[in-house]
């Protein structure tokens, strides 16, 4: 048994709309001939190459799967732009010629990724805190597939577990997901550096998406009554909007237009 499958490369995360490239490398034994290489997605054949068949390359249409190009061996194929249906389990199956029809195969899963249109948004953070004040804020990601992972930082340091709430993921009917996670701690003297401290929410998706939002507050030196902590404070809203333009209601379109191509570019560079 000398036919060997050397390598199967299927991108695990594929940005929605990008064209995934799949590679299957094998090695024939001496005096061994190739009969077929077959590509399946979720058990269904979508491409095959039979070198000695009158029609050596044959594509079969599957939803979200369209082979755009292939090399002569059929071992490197490029799919058309990924849609959500493109995700799934891809299998490469290579068979030798008769009489034994040695067969090797391997498979890998592909996930189609849709990034959020905007970065994580922090809510509930005030502009002034006194030592001893309780800080209770939320960070909510934008809609994405799959869900965004959120993490809190205080003054640039990962927030302790005791201050981090359990993340909550909301799934919409169309499959998009929104992640939200709270942060809850009391302000101490150590938080203040130069009279101010910062909290940051980091949103990540595997290794292809990385965005954060950070806010800063000053020491008010007088402790506010507890009642004020609960009540919404209009002035704070307006402050936050000044500091974080991404949170402005009129900015999302702008962000989406600018951010997505940049990220895609970055990912493209990275993969290359």
């Amino acid at each position, binding site marked *: *048994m000398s*036919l060997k499958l050397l390598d199967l490369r299927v991108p695990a995360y594929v940005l929605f709309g990008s064209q995934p490239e799949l590679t299957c490398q094998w090695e024939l034994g001496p005096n061994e001939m190739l009969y*077929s290489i*077959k590509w*399946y997605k*979720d*058990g*269904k*054949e979508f491409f*095959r190459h039979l070198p000695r068949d009158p029609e050596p390359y*044959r594509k*079969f249409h599957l939803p979200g799967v369209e082979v755009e190009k292939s090399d002569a061996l059929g071992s490197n194929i490029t799919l058309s732009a990924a849609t959500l249906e493109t995700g799934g*389990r891809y*299998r490469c199956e290579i*068979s030798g010629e*008769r*009489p*034994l*029809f*040695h*067969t*090797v195969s391997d*498979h890998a899963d592909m996930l189609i990724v849709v990034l959020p249109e905007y970065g994580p948004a922090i809510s509930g953070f005030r502009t002034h805190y006194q030592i001893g004040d309780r800080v209770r804020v939320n960070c909510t990601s934008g809609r994405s597939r799959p869900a965004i992972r959120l993490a809190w930082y205080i003054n640039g340091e990962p927030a302790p577990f005791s201050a981090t709430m359990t993340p909550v993921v909301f799934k919409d009917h169309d499959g998009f997901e929104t992640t939200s996670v709270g942060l809850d701690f009391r302000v101490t003297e150590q938080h203040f550096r130069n009279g101010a401290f910062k909290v940051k929410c980091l949103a990540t998706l595997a290794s292809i998406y990385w965005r954060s939002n950070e806010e800063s507050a000053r020491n008010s030196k007088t402790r506010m009554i507890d009642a004020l902590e609960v009540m919404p404070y209009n002035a704070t809203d307006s402050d936050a909007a000044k500091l974080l333009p991404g949170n402005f209601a009129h900015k999302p379109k702008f962000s989406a237009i600018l951010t997505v191509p940049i990220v895609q570019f970055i990912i493209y560079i990275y993969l290359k």
Partner: protein
Amino acid sequence: MLVSVPMTQLVAIAGEPVYLPCDIATQDEDDAVLLVLWYREDLGTPIYSVDARERDFGVAERWSDESVFASRAYFLPERRPAELGVDRVRASDQGIYRCRVDFKQAQTRNSRVNLTVIVPPNKMVITDDKGDVKQAIVGPYVEGDTFTLKCDVSGGRPRPWVKWYRDEVEVDTPATALQGNAVRGVIHVGPLTRADVRAALTCRASNHLRAHPIETTLTLDMNFPPLTVHILGSNQPLSASRRYDLLCQSSGSRPPASITWWKNGHRINNAKETLSSDGNTTTSTVSLQLTKADAGAKLACRASNPQMPSVAALEDDWLLDIQYVPETTVRLGTNLDPKNIREGTDVYFDCIIKAHPYVYKVEWRHNRKTLVHNVGQGIIITNQSLVLQGVGRKTAGNYTCVGFNAEGDGESKPFSLNVLYAPTCRSSQQRVHGVAKQERAHITCHVDANPADVSFRWTFNNTANSNEVSDSYVSRSGTSSTVTYTPHTEMDYGTLLCWAHNRIGKQRVPCVYHIIAAGRPDQVHNCTVVNASLTSFGIRCAEGFNGGLPQSFLLEVRDIISQEIVANVSSAVPRFTAVGLEPGKTYASAVLAYNAKGRGDPYPLRASTLRPPEKHHVHDKSLDLPRTAFQISGAMSAAVGGGGVLMVVLVLFMVAVRQRCAKRKPRSAPPPSSQPASPDKLREKDDSESDDRNPDIIPSDTDHMQLDYFRQQQVSTISPPPGNRAPRGSVAGVRGSIPGYCPLRTIPPSTHPQAMHDNSTASSSIPPPARFASGACTLPRGAGACASSGAGIPLQHLRTLPRPLPAPAPAPRHTPRDTPL
């Protein structure tokens, strides 16, 4: 893996075929199946392939992995869906199979089959409480036992279930899993009863409904002691000396009972056992011949189970009641000496009887003839005893008694009764001896005596005297004595008397032998014609005295007219038949006797043949009825006419004889009226002393004995008359009849002897008739002549014979040496 590839679940029983589905159908007419590949998921290489890429699918190249299905696999494309058949599925065939169908155009089609192979359990081991492995039979157990069987089943996949059944009814079976894939099922049985025998205990195990279960059936074996034992037909009486086949039956034993027989605690060994077809009943047959000694013995039949020696045998007993043929013994009365029983003694016997059942009858037998109680004959039978009063010699013999019961007749050994008696003269002897002078005669005296050791004494008597006969003329042989005697003179004729005696006594009455001068035979008499036919007639006569010598007889038949002899027949007896005669003719016949001394007087008579039938009737009246008389009278008239002179002479002679008889009369002995009665109650006619050769007497009647008796009394001059014999009632009658005989003797002289002589000269072989010697009348003739006188006691003439006295010869009689010649 191929999560979206459809998978079919299949279960197969190891050893059976399985069919793995693989859909190769396509709706597109232009499409075609190029290749079918079967994979087992743990292997990278197909295990079966159908390659039709360069040929029609019907002749596609098929290939099967030798290390997997090899020739067991075969593709069945015509089925819907197509199937891969695999024969004789193995446990190692279990797994997930994938079928890949490459079409010419269509997408490759993959499908999967999850094949589960059921491996039935292959090992079942049943052990009992002791851990012994049981194969077909469990036991034997006995009633009340309980036991447990473990059924361990292994070798199956998946783990089998195990169940116990009793006679095909499932029994609650606790089961426990053992190491590996094994399972143990347990059954508890008991307490056992007789009904449990042969129960079928089945352990059955399987691991799939479709799989054949494996099972083992054990038959419950049990041992039972016998329940019953019976001697068949016991307690009825048995006959001794018969062979019986006695049966004893025992039932309920398992294995079959062993039966033994015992008599008074001793084993009887010749029994034979048979077994009923169901094996439940043993029958033992013993062949026994029991004897009287077995009465009361205990016959026992014991049945036991040879496999259960600790259980006591069952026993049936029978106290034997033995019946047997009576055993009898004759015992002579204790005061009697069996060696010394004399005539006249009273003898009695007892019959000693052993019998069961007791005799219903006792019988006595004498010389095998049954005796009847008869007091008059002195035979008295009472109970088991027999009394014989006054035994005689005829009473002697073998006596047995016979006891009768239901078993049979038991006759004793004979008791031989020996009756002793003094000698008596034996009957049927030659009493008259005709002897010529100088002729030597042997006169033998035979006597009966018990004991037979006898001695004899002889005397000779004549009219003059009585002399003892010297022993030198006498020889003896047993109970016979012979005298050799030769008369020399007239005086030597007379009577010889023979006396014998033994230790019982002397002969009371001597044997008497008359020595007479031998002469011609006397004339025959009473001749009659018999059996006349047309050509023959017979003549019968009574013979006369033979003259002291053996006589023969002659018949002459002459034609009356021509006097020619037409028949001449001689015979040892006076019975003749003349044949070859003419019908209706009368012949002159004559019958005469002759002996060595000459011819007797002929007896003439006329005899006729029958006339032819047509004339017969006439002659019947005139001739037939009076024929004899007529013929005799005719003969007499002829004799008178022919010999008148002789008749005159004869008349003169008869007158002379009568005068002599009258002179002797006073010397006659008195009549024997004083004879004593015989003591012999079993008396028979004792003619031992009779003189049946006396020519005066026709030897055809019983009464002549009496005559002889009286004559002997008169002859005897040596022994006194027997003392106490009573006269019999018949004697007088006999005496009265005697004169009737005498005339027969007187008749012959009426035929002139000379005439007969003349008529008989033709026969040369017959001695000529002797002429009467003048005055020499022999004893018998004289007697006949004397009797004709009709005077008094008829035998007186013996002493009045007109014969010459033998006086001149006394000397020779006393010198017997002269007597023999």
